[in-house]
């Protein structure tokens, strides 16, 4: 069953506080969190979170397309290693 709309999206209050502080100060250092269940809010856009996956912290740079998802979705707990091959990246 979906979460009731009147409650709003769930986010750990401490994490929200840290994110708002970082946005106010313009700090871009990653915010370390264990809260994989927190929803990504619009005010998180542009920040980087180090999200724990049970073993290590995975950096998650938040962009607009990620709003509404949970932080844990971008920090998988299982990994299938392979070759880099001719995979390309862009920034």
């Amino acid at each position, binding site marked *: 069953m979906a979460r009731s709309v009147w409650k709003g999206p769930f986010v750990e209050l401490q994490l929200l506080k840290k994110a708002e502080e970082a946005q106010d100060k313009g700090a*871009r*250092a*990653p915010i370390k969190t264990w809260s994989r269940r927190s929803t990504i809010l619009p005010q998180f856009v542009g920040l*980087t979170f*180090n999200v724990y996956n049970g073993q*290590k*912290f*995975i*950096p*998650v*740079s*938040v*962009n607009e397309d*990620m709003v509404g998802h949970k932080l844990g*979705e*971008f*920090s*998988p707990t299982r*990994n299938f*290693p*392979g*070759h*880099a*091959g*001719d*995979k*390309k*990246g*862009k*920034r």
Partner: protein
Amino acid sequence: MAEDKPVTLAAITGAHGVTGEVRLKLFGEGLEALSTHRQFNDGALTLKKLRDDGKGGAIARFAEVPDRTAAEKLRGTALAVPRSALPALGEGEYYHADLLGLAAVTETGEPLGSVIAVENYGASDVLEIERPDGKRFMVPMHTEAVPEWNDERLVVSAAFAEG
């Protein structure tokens, strides 16, 4: 960095049929990128035909493989091409293979370790860096975290180097 460093694009997972075709597991950008290459492993294998297997892999035929027996012997063989055979990059683009093994340093030149993996979990590319003591940390591949890199070193911002 050596321009002719071999880059593994696929691996042979077994024989397919009785006429010498093999099944491939793809590692790179996919079937189209692989089909642009004809010679693999320094010319040891010459690609004649390549098609999709409908399951995320590919079926290939090599000139040097006439029958199933020969195809079965190739199981586990990695198909590599020299780095110089890969297509040229656009502005701001990079090959994951180019970043692997690069020395990571801070903005002040302090050594941090070396890049051992490049992953993408849906947010952005993430570099995994191993320190000399064996500990590892991850850094997002964006301008604030990695201001610059070249063929010899990769500069990591101090705020992101703490892991």
